[in-house]
């Protein structure tokens, strides 16, 4: 458990770092079955609920992709919410076996820059995950 807490701490700190470099409001790393691994969220956010919903949205998108473009994996789900200048964009990306990253940022942000910093963060997070832990789905999910 202490090893896992350490991993959670490392990934959460990487997510916090991401927020410093681009205007990402919140980010979560979750298992495919909707359990949080690490997060950088506002205090009032219901982590359990949002993690489960991320899992469901990505699962449904994957199923849709299977119907539309069989044999091609789903890489990313993008949601646009509201209108500029207050609109927000959500990116959900499957980054590793059973692991999804979620980020939300203002739509008016420089998308290219956000994607670049996100890819850097993902690379670092994958390194932490693959060298430290085998993320399994329920009932053996980590955390």
């Amino acid at each position: 458990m202490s090893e896992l807490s350490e991993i959670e701490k490392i990934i959460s700190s990487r997510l916090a770092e991401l927020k410093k470099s681009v205007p990402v409001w919140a980010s979560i790393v979750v298992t495919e079955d909707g359990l949080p691994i690490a997060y950088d969220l506002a205090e009032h956010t219901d982590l359990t609920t949002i993690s489960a919903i991320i899992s469901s949205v990505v699962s449904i998108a994957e199923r849709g992709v299977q119907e539309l473009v069989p044999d091609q994996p789903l890489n990313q789900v993008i949601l646009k919410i509201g209108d500029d200048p207050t609109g927000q964009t959500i990116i959900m990306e499957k980054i590793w076996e059973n692991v999804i990253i979620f980020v939300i940022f203002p739509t008016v942000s420089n998308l290219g820059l956000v994607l670049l910093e996100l890819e850097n963060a993902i690379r670092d997070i994958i390194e932490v995950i693959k060298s430290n832990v085998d993320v399994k789905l329920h009932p053996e999910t980590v955390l």
Partner: protein
Amino acid sequence: MFGKKPYDYKIYVAGPFQAGKTTLIHKLDPKALSIEKPLRDGSGSTTTAFDLGHVFWVRPREESQGLVISEQEFEKEKDQYNGYIVSKVELKGGPGQIHFKAVREMVMKNSDGILFLVDSSDPMSIGQASALLEEAVLHLGKDIPIVVLANKQDLPDAMPVETVKTLLGDSEIITDIFPASALNNVGISDAISYLLMKIKKRKESLSGGN
């Protein structure tokens, strides 16, 4: 046959993780859609969004409990059901893992009744089952028709129906509990047609008669 006509009845198939909800829906509708992830230990899979299936409820007369059959069975034996009352039923299953509460709330919305599954061979899951049943009743109302299935009766260590009922506790909510094996398709069609009769009677009483 299903075309664009709306469903006549919508049943929310509920129950804890690994109670057999997905198995049941696929037994009744082999073409059902399931959004799930395989468990990495190879022991099965877990629903991460929903299961969606549809069946036909065929009755020779209004007051008859009739049969619940798949679309394929109906199409194959269509002539046999000439003159029958045919209703379309949607079966919606939600994820059983407790943290999917928000997703379950979306799935159960607008349901006419609850088919609640309990794993009879797993007494440890009964506590979670009670919580999930309470959650569903809270959202759909205490008058929502419910049928409980004491599932996995095919397993040697399955508890008898009465024991499952006692462990579940609330006798006001759980009035109808049936033994079943979703895996072997035993008891499920009867339980669903029984539930559909309850739903139909409730709809009639709400609309003030017939």
